[in-house]
C-alpha cells in the first residue's frame, strides 16, 4: 500500500511539531524517519497511524484519503517503543488480541493456528504461555511485532523499535526485521534517532529537523551527498575547519578543495575522521596530539590545532604517536558550507 503525505501540519498548543511535510512511501518500501528528538518524526508516524490527527494537509493510503480515518479502522500495525504488551495476557493472548476483537469472525482453531504461525515467524515457538514480564526485551519487541502483524495490516509502523535494547540485540533484530520485511513485502515506516540503524535497515532515509524534511534519499545519497551541514553532522562524526572560499575554491594548509556553487566568503569545511590523514612531518595543518583512542575497527587520534580547535582523525593501526607529539593533518576530502 502506497502512503502519501501532503503538506501535513501538526501543532501542540502553540508549538509547531510538524510544519508542512510532504512525503511519498512506495508500496513495499522500508523507509526510516530519522531525526534528533523534537524533530517531529514520532508525531508524523502517529499521524500516519491515526493516533494523532493532522491540523492541515492530507494523508492518503493508496487512493483513499485516510486523513480522518480513526486508528481503529485504518488497518495499520503499530509497534510501540516500549512494546505496550498487555501485561495481564500471555504472549499467545497478546498476539491473538487483534483477531479476537476484529469484526471478522474467526474460529478458535483459526486463531490458534495463526498465533503459532506468527510465533514461528518471529522465532519464539514455545513462548506461547509466558507473560511479558517473563521474557527479555528483544523477545518482547518480537511479540509486539507479531501482534501487529496478526491483523494483516496494510502498513507497518514502528516507533523507535530498538531504542530500549542493548547493542548486540539491536544489531540482530535489525537484520531480522529486514528479513521479515523482505519476506512479507509490507510497506514499513519506522522512526529512529540512530543514524546507523536508519542506514542499516532502510531503503530510503528521510532526515527531519524541527518538524520539516531536510533531506530524503537512499542511504548512499544522503551519506555521499549530504545537502546541508545539519545532515552531514547528524549522520556521523564530523570535523569542522574554518576557512575562506574564493572563486569556488578553498585553500587549506597543504590542501586545496573545490567548492562548486559556494558563495565566496567564510565557510566551514566539514570532514569525516576518515577524510583526514596524519603525517609527522611535511605539509598540512600543524597540530599536537591530545589522545590516542584504540577501537576494534581502528585507531583514532584526537588532535588540537594552533587555534585550539579539536579534530578527530582515523589513522592506520600501525601509526604511532603519544600525547603531546606534534604533527600535521591533511584534509583529503570535505564539504564546504557557508558559515552560519
Amino acid at each position, binding site marked *: 500500500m502506497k502512503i502519501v503525505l501532503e503538506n501535513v501540519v501538526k501543532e501542540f498548543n502553540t508549538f509547531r511539531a510538524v510544519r508542512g511535510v510532504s512525503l511519498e512511501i512506495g508500496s513495499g518500501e522500508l523507509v526510516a524517519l530519522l531525526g534528533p528528538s523534537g524533530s517531529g518524526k514520532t508525531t508524523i508516524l502517529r499521524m500516519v497511524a491515526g493516533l494523532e490527527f493532522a491540523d492541515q494537509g492530507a494523508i492518503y493510503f493508496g487512493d483513499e484519503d485516510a486523513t480522518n480515518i480513526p486508528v*481503529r479502522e485504518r488497518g495499520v500495525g503499530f509497534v*510501540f517503543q516500549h512494546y505496550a504488551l498487555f501485561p495481564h495476557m500471555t504472549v499467545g493472548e497478546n498476539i491473538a488480541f487483534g483477531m479476537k*476483537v476484529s469484526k471478522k469472525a474467526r474460529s478458535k482453531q483459526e486463531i490458534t493456528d495463526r498465533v503459532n504461525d506468527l510465533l514461528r515467524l518471529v522465532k519464539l515457538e514455545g513462548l506461547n504461555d509466558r507473560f511479558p*514480564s*517473563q521474557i527479555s526485551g528483544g523477545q518482547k519487541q518480537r511479540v509486539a511485532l507479531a501482534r501487529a502483524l496478526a*491483523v494483516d495490516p496494510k502498513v507497518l509502523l514502528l516507533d523507535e523499535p530498538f531504542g530500549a535494547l542493548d547493542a548486540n540485540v539491536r544489531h540482530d533484530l535489525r537484520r531480522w526485521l529486514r528479513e521479515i520485511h523482505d519476506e512479507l513485502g509490507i510497506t514499513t515506516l519506522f522512526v529512529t534517532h540512530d543514524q546507523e540503524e536508519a542506514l542499516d535497515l532502510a531503503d530510503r532515509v528521510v532526515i527531519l529537523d524541527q518538524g520539516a524534511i531536510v533531506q530524503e534519499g537512499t542511504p548512499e545519497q544522503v551519506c555521499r551527498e549530504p545537502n546541508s551541514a545539519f545532515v552531514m553532522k547528524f549522520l556521523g562524526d564530523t570535523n569542522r575547519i574554518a576557512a575562506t572560499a574564493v572563486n569556488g575554491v578553498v585553500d587549506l594548509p597543504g590542501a586545496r578543495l573545490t567548492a562548486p556553487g559556494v558563495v565566496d566568503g567564510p565557510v566551514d569545511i566539514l570532514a569525516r575522521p576518515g577524510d583526514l590523514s596524519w603525517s609527522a612531518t611535511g605539509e598540512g595543518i600543524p597540530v599536537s596530539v591530545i589522545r590516542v583512542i584504540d577501537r576494534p575497527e581502528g585507531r583514532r587520534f584526537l588532535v588540537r590545532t594552533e587555534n585550539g580547535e579539536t579534530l578527530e582523525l582515523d589513522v592506520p593501526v600501525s601509526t604511532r604517536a603519544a600525547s603531546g607529539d606534534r604533527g600535521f593533518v591533511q584534509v583529503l576530502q570535505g564539504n564546504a558550507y557557508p558559515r552560519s
Partner: protein
Amino acid sequence: MMVHHSASTPPRVGDRPGIRRALIGFVLIFGTLLVLAPLLVIFSQAFSLGLGHFAETISHPDTRHAIYLTVATALLAVPINTAFGIAAAWAITKFDFWGKRFLLIVIEIPFSVSPIVAGVAYLFVYGLQGLFGPALQAADVKVLFALPGIVLASMFVTAPFVARELIPLMQAQGRELEEAATSLGASGWRTFLTVTLPNIRWALLYGVVLCNARVMGEFGAVSVVSGKIRGQTNTLPLHVELLYHDYNTVGAFAAASILTVLALFTIIAKVLLERQGAGRAGRPALAANKVGT
C-alpha cells in the same frame, strides 16, 4: 549471602541498638494503648452481660434497622462512587483538557473539608429553606431525613477514595496500552474491559474497600442530614451514639462491635489485596511461580 552485624561493623544510620529498642518499644506501647486496648474493651463490654444479652440487643428492631440502613447506604453509595472514581481517573489520566488541575482539586476537597460542613451544606441545598427543598417537597420527594440524603452525604465524603487510588497508577501506565488495543481494532468499551480494567483491578478493589469502610463508618455528615430518627434514619454509627446517650452502655458496645467486625473484614480484605499487589500488575507476579511447568 547474609552479612551479619559484628561488633566491628559500624551500625547504619539510625540503627544504634539503644535508639532502635527505644523506638520500637515506644511504638508498640503507644499502639497498644491507643488502638488495640480500646478495641478489646468494645468486645469485652459488649459481651459483659453474656451472649444472650448481646443477641437481644443485636436483634432489637432499631438496631436491625440501623444495620439494614448502613448496608443499604453502602450498597448504593459505593458503586456510584466507584463509577465516578473510574470516570474521573480515566478523564484525568487519559485526556488533556482545560480545567484538569481544577478537577483534581475538586476531587480532593472532601478529604480536607470536615464532614459536618458537608452535612450542613446538604441541609441548605435540599432543606425546606434550601435551594431545591420547596421543589422537592412539591414533587413529594424526600431527600433529607431519608435514605437519599444519607447516601448523598456519604458519597460526598467518600468521593475521592477510588479516584485517588487509580490516578497515580493510571498515570504511570500511560496511554500506550489503550492505543495498542485500539490500533488492533478494539472498541473503546472493549479496550476498557479487556485492557484497562485488568491492569487497575487491584488498585480499584483497594479503593472500593476503603470507600466502603468510610461509608459504613461515616458519622458527621450523616448525623446532620439524617435527622437521627430512631429506627428510621439512624445508621449504625448514629445508633451507637444514641444507645450510649440512653445509658445503654452494653447495647452501645454491642452495636459498636458489629461496626468493628465490619471494619475488621475491611482490613483483612485490604491486607489480602495488598498481597495480591494492589497498584501493581497482578497476574504476572502470581504466575511467575508457574514458569517451567
